[in-house]
């Protein structure tokens, strides 16, 4: 089966430090893949590359969603690669690069089907919960200025549909009682769930969750595991997550990728990883290796 996401040779440097070095992994469609590793291993950096917030220095990130050719869509082109001299001989390519230089960015990655949440929650605090979800559907509603101002039929229908969709997700995450509260006023656990709901409102193929269980109590964590599993099973959303709660990771993941110092040191099923000596060494220090 073609993987949904293939990362090949991903490399990024900050100043002189190589944060990621030749990272390779793949995410199978319909799976839950977890990125784990000690603090500072580069997990969030991988996320930021995959979702387009950082521009990788090398490698490819291909997404096989929708009707693209076999190669898939290289997400890095969407961010606007630097224009090179040799592009001058390929006007189409030059135009494409220039276009993405000016208008490219993480938003195109999202539109291609990758949504994410953030480690430190980033909600629209002074907007209501419902508005948070409506904003996420910006590309699906009728955003044209005139039809909105004139309240055209099409506009109203699309708004209604967006409201429905948002309500669905609110119910799914048991937040429907708080639709008209300010997002910033919600308790922490609810904010985490709201952020997931918001990401899902963009209809992603791949959902990237950055430490979704951080700061949750055991009860909430259990509920979250259930929700994630339901998402995969019922909604066919593929999930890539970073998590420190090993219990949860081992319980729900189909596939694990272990990072240390910017390199992949192991990949496999939870059982394989639990027995991998390099992983143990990375987590417990070199003495154990």
């Amino acid at each position: 089966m073609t993987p949904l996401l293939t990362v090949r040779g991903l490399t990024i440097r900050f100043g002189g430090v190589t944060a990621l070095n030749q990272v390779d992994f793949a995410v199978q469609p319909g799976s839950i893949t977890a990125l784990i590793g000690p603090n500072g291993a580069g997990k969030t950096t991988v996320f930021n590359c995959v979702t387009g917030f950082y521009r990788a220095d090398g490698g490819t990130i291909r997404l096989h969603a929708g009707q693209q050719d076999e190669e898939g869509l290289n997400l890095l082109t969407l961010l606007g690669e630097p224009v090179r001299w040799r592009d001058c001989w390929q006007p189409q390519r030059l135009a494409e690069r220039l276009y993405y230089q000016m208008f490219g960015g993480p938003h195109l990655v999202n539109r291609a089907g990758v949504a994410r949440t953030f480690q430190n929650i980033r909600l629209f605090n002074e907007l209501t919960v419902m508005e948070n979800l409506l904003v996420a559907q910006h590309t699906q509603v009728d955003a044209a200025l005139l039809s909105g101002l004139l309240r055209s039929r099409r506009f109203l229908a699309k708004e209604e549909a967006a409201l429905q969709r948002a309500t669905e997700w609110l119910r799914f995450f048991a937040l429907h009682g708080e639709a008209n509260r300010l997002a910033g006023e919600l308790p922490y656990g609810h904010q985490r769930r709201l952020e997931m709901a918001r990401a899902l409102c963009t209809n992603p193929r791949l959902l990237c969750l950055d430490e979704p269980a951080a700061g949750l109590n055991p009860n909430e964590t259990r509920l979250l595991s259930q929700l994630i599993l339901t998402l995969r099973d019922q909604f066919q959303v593929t999930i890539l997550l970073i998590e420190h709660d090993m219990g949860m990771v081992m319980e729900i993941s189909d596939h694990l990728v272990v990072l240390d110092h910017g390199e992949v040191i192991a990949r496999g099923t939870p059982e394989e990883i639990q027995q991998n000596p390099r992983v143990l060494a990375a987590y417990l220090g070199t003495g154990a290796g």
Partner: protein
Amino acid sequence: MWARWWMACRVGAIALLLLAPMVGAVLSGYQIETHWQRPLWLALAVTVGTFFCSWLLQHIGWFDRFGGRAASSTPAVTIGQSGPRPLWILLAMALAIALPFVVGKYGMSVAILALIYILLGLGLNIVVGLAGLLDLGFVAFYAVGAYTYALGYHYWQLSFWLALPLGALLAGLFGMVLGFPVLRLHGDYLAIVTLGFGEIIRLVLNNWVAVTGGPNGVSVVFPTLFGLEFNRRAKQGGTPIHEFFGISYSSDHRAIFLYFLLLAVVGLLIIMVIRLKRMPIGRAWEALRENEVACRSLGIHHVTVKLSAFGLGAMVGGIGGVFFAALQGFVNPSSFTFFESAYILAIVVLGGMGSTTGVIAAAMVLTVLPELLRDFSDYRVLSVGIAMVLMMVWRPRGLRQRRRPFFALPTAAEENRAAALVPGVDGR
């Protein structure tokens, strides 16, 4: 009691120190004239006043803020179905329509000015209040609008009715062209760039004498209504309106005409802004203000969304400019200084950044107040300054709270009907 006196005395002593050289010694050439009793009296007044004010006001909450305590206890945002009650809106409309028949010519000119400021305030509110882009050069677009009409008339006999859309368009274009490179900048840098841009526009208008007339400005004709003129005698080749209707000439006609025209434009704009807030683009602006990174992760292109806010705000500014030119009958660069930008910004901030009614109220306060204070002539601007500081301290979040729209959730039945819209949802 004694502690309070002691405190008042210390305040008085500082006041004396501050006032003594400035009020007590007045420069006259290279010498000074001394009036030592003045600072003494003032300091005494400050001392006594401090004492009584602190005694009187100690129970009023906002006064505590001078102690430096947090001022964020009241919630900044309310969630509700709509803004003011329909009754109030009707009343306000009736008042606005009746106004020209109640107040005189002077009242009309103040009212027109207030309307122009409401227009500008609403325009800047889109940029600052909704999209959260601090724009200190809004006056540039105002100037573009005013000069579009003035120069358009001067060179090509452009009529007001053509200048109105053209000015808006041109100002919007300017906004876009400026916005595109700079909207990637973060908050305060954007403020500075816009400040610089506002100054550049004014300086160019002032220096490019061959085209703009420089400081001499350009004369503008008053708009006509379907070819009917508002002059005593026809000047632009039309018929004076009073002859057409067979009434006697009154210079009030033109003020009333402009007033109602502006009222209509402002009314349309208010409806537009209210709708914008419940539209995808308006929501995207506010989301961008709240968190840019999150917006980008949700498929919203921050630059184009900002650009739309910037351009739309600029267009409104341009319309304001065209009206200003029509009102003045003459434009020159001295009307478009940085101070004007600051004043419009003050309207937006005072209005509560994003609240439409707040901006309208603030625009009225800040245009009518200086006029009311004309009786104090010398102390007028001083009082406006004091009022600005006091109002900010009293209501740092503006006159009105921001209001968020309320969404009624669809019932389960409706939901089932619409369930097909969400792929794979079985309506749990």
